[in-house]
């Protein structure tokens, strides 16, 4: 378990990118303080940008939209909604006393 940041470091309904063992992890916070973590790397644009995407829900799934070309990824599973062959790694996040751990 590694400490990433304080919960308050993430503005509600946005994401941040955290460094975890040399990997870039996008950590998202919904308004109800649910936290999700996925790869920050967008396989479509090949850029590390997913933490900067807009959060929302589509077809009853919580998703982030890539800021480059708007593909959607399920925050829980990492599954891409537009291309069933693409799935990001999702990570388990723990919140303890206002701090975010992976």
């Amino acid at each position, binding site marked *: 378990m590694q400490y990433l*940041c304080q919960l308050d470091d*993430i503005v509600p309904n946005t994401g941040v990118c955290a460094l975890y063992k040399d990997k870039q992890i996008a950590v998202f916070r919904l308004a109800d303080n649910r936290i999700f973590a996925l790869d920050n790397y967008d396989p479509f644009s090949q850029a590390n940008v997913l933490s900067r995407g*807009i959060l929302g829900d589509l077809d009853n799934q919580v998703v982030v939209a890539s800021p*480059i070309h708007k593909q959607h990824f399920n925050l829980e599973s990492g599954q891409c909604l537009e291309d069933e062959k693409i799935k990001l790694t999702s990570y388990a996040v723990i919140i303890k006393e206002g701090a975010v751990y992976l």
Partner: protein
Amino acid sequence: MKKRLIVVGHGMVGHHFVCQAITLGLTEQYQITVLSAEPRPAYDRVQLTRYFDTLNAQDLNLVDTDIYSEKNIQLLLNTPVTAIDREQKQVHTEQDIFDFDILILATGSYPFVPNVPGHQDPRCFVYRTIEDLDAIIAAAKTSQVGVVVGGGLLGLEAAKALTTLGLNTHVVEFAPQLMAVQIDAQGGDLLRKKIEALNVKVHTQKNTQCIEPGIEHPLRMKFGEDQFLEADLIVFSAGIRPQDQLAKTCGLTLGERGGIRINDYCQTSDPTIYAIGECALWQNRIFGLVAPGYQMATIAAQHLSGVENKKFEGADMSTKLKLMGVDVGSIGDAHGRAPDSQHIFYQNPQKGIYKKLVTSVDGKQLLGAVLIGDTTDYSNLLQLYLNNMTLPEEPEGLILPSLSGKNNALGVAALPDTAQICSCYNVNKATLCSAVREGAHSLTDIKNCTSASTGCGGCTQLVKDIMQHELKQLGITVNNHLCSHFSYTRQELYHLIRVEELKTFDQVIAQHGRGLGCDICKPTVASILASCWNDYILKTEHAGLQDSNDYFLGNIQKDGSYSVVPRVPGGEITPDKLIVLGEVAKQFNLYTKITGGQRVDLFGARVEQLPAIWRMLVDAGFETGHAYGKAVRTVKSCVGSTWCRYGVDDSVGLAIEVENRYKGLRSPHKIKMAVSGCTRECAEAQSKDVGVIATEHGWNLYVCGNGGMRPRHADLLASDLDKETLIRYVDRFLMFYIRTADRLQRTSVWLEKLEGGLDYLRKVIIDDSLGLAAQLETEMANIIGTYQCEWKTTIEDPIRLKRFTHFVNSKRSDDNIVFVQERQQIRPATQTEKAQLSSLEV
């Protein structure tokens, strides 16, 4: 006690039968058990070749095992049936005996391998299951040359697979042409040329006599005297044979050449035993496609449930497919075997297109067709054929390229209700239309309630056309709701926000929407809120609504870096300020380019550099240029009467005034403007959303022009205006556009969609026909009065500055943003360059 129903075989058709049984409620009367010899549940064999893309068998899976267990259906894999005892009504497997009341045989078929001496060599394969593919993949690793025996549909699929595996690929066919069943000789020739162009060698009229050890490769196929071909592996794909062994040994009636005989309800000679799919023989025909197999499964299930007495009536074997990137279509009597049939050809060797129509002797009915290289006419021709419709006077128009731009296709209105639209799930036009009438108004809804276009997907466009036509018939306008979270148009939402004075997205979605929102409604509402109340957009309650561009106040580029565009009103800039731009670019190593809007774009800024860059720019008196926002961008100008010997008025002065007036105004899409100092129009004002041209008597105001993808010349809204009137009209025009346009709709498209067009717009803006003018002007005054430079605000706010780091927990930069030099400046490295650079570092 429930009766016992056993399904033998869990391929696509066996699985489809189970699905139909569930839908029809057969699980209430029957305890269903499925016995399958295969190691995995049913998968999509039609798409088998896709397995090479991902090597993930799960991608082809068709079965939701939860539904099976929910309905208490037992699925036993790796359980081949060894015998059927009709007297005892029992099925034997190696370990068990199962009693049955009803037995469904869905045993499918097996690949036919000609009895050539040597075909048992372990380097000979067939192409039917995932296990076959795994074996071929393993063998290909140590092979250079692969041969496919069989130039039919499946053979060419297999050839594609071998080329994907990097093998030098040959196709050997007994007949004189490829796909001899589906297409004629001429079509076969063209197909051959196209496939040979893809580096597959085709050998026709070759009969393999034996397979022996070779000299250069392990296998040698001998065709005749001195004729041979050597290979490392051979794939047999020479057709299929029904898997009827079990039926034979238990004494069911078979056809002379195999296949389990069935009646119109798919019952075999024993009425308690049904046969469906490729193992079944109906009127001496085997159907080797999935759609007829599905139909048989449905008919058998319906017959058992007693709800309907539909009969199997045979199936159309027309096909459309893409073979190794080559489009091929075949309909009905493709060879024109009917006596006296007439043939019409179109051939374009340049484009590699061949089309043939086969019509009745009077030219009124379509009997068949062949399409190679272009199958866009397929759906249309198939409907004409299936429904026996009367052909147009000049049927050649159906396959000729439409030179006049006229569409030769028949409209969906002409199709009879019985026209089969989706052949995979046997859905006709009437079913689709009644689904639309019962409330299915989107393609997703139609798919859910009719299953149409959920199989091969080939009918999707036709289904959509029928849906839209039916909606129109019903007088239903297709909904233009913003997204699934709001059942309003942007205009309606704007009105609600304005009238109810809603200030945050949370309020808007709580009162008028549902769910969390998405990347469509969030930026739209953010834009409306900004147009109405002009709040600082990075406030905590607005932050999550903004596109990445607005969130970081820069334009995100393909590699995740940002570009920076300071405002240069009217394109006028002092040498000192120009030097500052150069200094900033040098200090942060940015790529610089002059934009079309008369300013300078600085590229390659990392997110963590943005505040320092803007600190320098703001200190030098620059403001943000809003290049990242759906907002007023630039007001371009020519140099005007101050310097120009033709100039009539001070275009630069007016452009600066206009740009400073409207800077920061957020709108449904970007807004560009220009002012020209005379009719020579050097500022190209007539290609802008708002264009102003100086005249001898004042200013002419043009609106709704556009350059870009869909150029549109602006319309003259009013002439010879004094400056005050001009500004008043522009105020009204912009606010009216912001109020009524759709999301991401430029003024040009907006005007084209506006009912009443330019005349109506003139009445609203100039004659104040809606009594709105004063309100629009007040709203604009409020925006102008609350302007702030977002970057100035941001760099003075430590809380907002926190977000300008790449990592929340590290000061490091994104190491995936890498630049190389080109023409003395930086540019993003390509993936190859990145790989090379990182290997150098190690």
